[in-house]
């Protein structure tokens, strides 16, 4: 009989595992994989930042790709705010609506050289009789823009001054800030006469 078989067939021999050293190459391989994993994690994980999604690898890279608020971005933002707040009455095309709001297209109140009057209209509201492009209106507008930030209001005003054929030039947040600083704490809605008394 084969001596090995004979040895294993002994009934009372409980099989036991002996301790053996892990081969060095496995340790080296595991450490190498750990290192590569660490490098990959560092380059691709964004360190588990909740704001960082693929394809951005880190918060710094995400920051670099934030669009600057250029003229196009201002107009796009202005259009969103306009459609949400102003367009309801003045119409998505700025043509106004009978008995609701006068048109903004070609309006002498929009296409001004300065901003003194224009900025006040959304900030304080406008009441009473008003002539726009030779037509008489007699409505009241609430201070729809009082709750907007300077930048948002500037974007909306820029949008209405640069759209639908209007070409009156942009309004900046600083312009709005300057006018807002001149208002009292709870300004009353103005009327056309009071507006006309101001610089254009």
């Amino acid at each position, binding site marked *: 009989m084969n001596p090995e078989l004979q040895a294993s067939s002994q009934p009372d021999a409980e099989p036991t595992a002996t301790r053996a050293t892990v081969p060095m190459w496995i340790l080296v391989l595991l450490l190498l994989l750990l290192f590569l994993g660490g490098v990959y994690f560092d380059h691709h994980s964004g360190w*588990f930042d*909740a*704001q*960082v*999604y*693929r*394809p*951005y690898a880190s918060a710094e890279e*995400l920051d*670099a*790709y*934030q*669009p*600057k*608020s*250029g*003229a*196009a*971005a*201002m107009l*796009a*933002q202005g259009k*969103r*705010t306009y459609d949400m707040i102003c367009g309801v009455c003045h119409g998505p095309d700025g043509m106004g609506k009978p008995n609701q709001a006068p048109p903004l297209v070609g309006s002498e109140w929009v296409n001004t050289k300065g901003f003194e009057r224009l900025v006040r209209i959304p900030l304080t509201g406008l009441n009473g009789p008003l002539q726009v492009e030779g037509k008489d209106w007699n409505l009241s507008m609430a201070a729809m823009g009082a709750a*907007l*930030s300077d*930048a*948002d209001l500037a*974007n909306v005003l820029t949008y209405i001054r640069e759209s639908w054929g209007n070409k009156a030039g942009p309004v900046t947040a600083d312009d709005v800030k300057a006018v807002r600083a001149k208002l009292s704490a709870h300004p009353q809605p103005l009327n056309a006469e009071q507006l006309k008394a101001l610089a254009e």
Partner: protein
Amino acid sequence: MKNGTAIFLAVFVALGASWGGFVLAPEWQLGGAKQTTVLNSSELYPLGRPGEAYQGLQVYRANGCAACHTEQIRQSGVACEVVLTSAGKNPSAVSNLISTLKLNGLAKEDADAASDKITAAGGKTEIHIVASGPDIARGWGTRQSVAEDYLYDYPVQLGGLRVGPDLSNVGVREPDLNWQLVHLYAPSSVVKGSTMPPFRFLFEVHKIGKAPSPDALVFPKGSGPPAAYEIVPKPEGRELAAYLLSLHANVPLYSAPFTP
């Protein structure tokens, strides 16, 4: 049992590690997600869905829409585009310069370098950020979906299979309420070759009374009920359509920037 303690500990660690990885870590990472603002503005995002649309989410869920539709846009890349906004005082020099430069599909540093060259020649530029990926190429969105898009939805209807198109922006693609309702009632009447099953139990067929209902569906020519009958949505149908119209995840956010 031999080594009982060791086996217990090993099982405990294995299950604990997967619980930590799949439950605890995401909770740490996204559990505190809150309303954010649209990029370069103070407009809040997301706004909660209006009541009818919120009810519609439950109709969407009850009818298993997520079995065939996803609500997640993938993005695989981002690139910069240098756009000339003004040629300045020396347009020919700027146009000569531009013909030698690559202006699309640039990394941020290359876009900055190109922009600096054009500015030095007297032109004015803007750098636009453009998101790209298979879903964006299909016109399903302008940027990838991020956690904020789902903030007020419970349960989130991510979906996993695309028998039909992705619906993250269906309210932008098809903003017409009547279109949505007709599509639910008879999909192939508005989308040729659609394999979507009709959801007619969300509607009622009425005989037209003294006056037609203002809610009755307006069908394209050649489809719709016989004369003297009209199709009116039940509350569920109206809610589902309102939910579909409320699906628009297309504004730029800090975590998913692009130039609108």
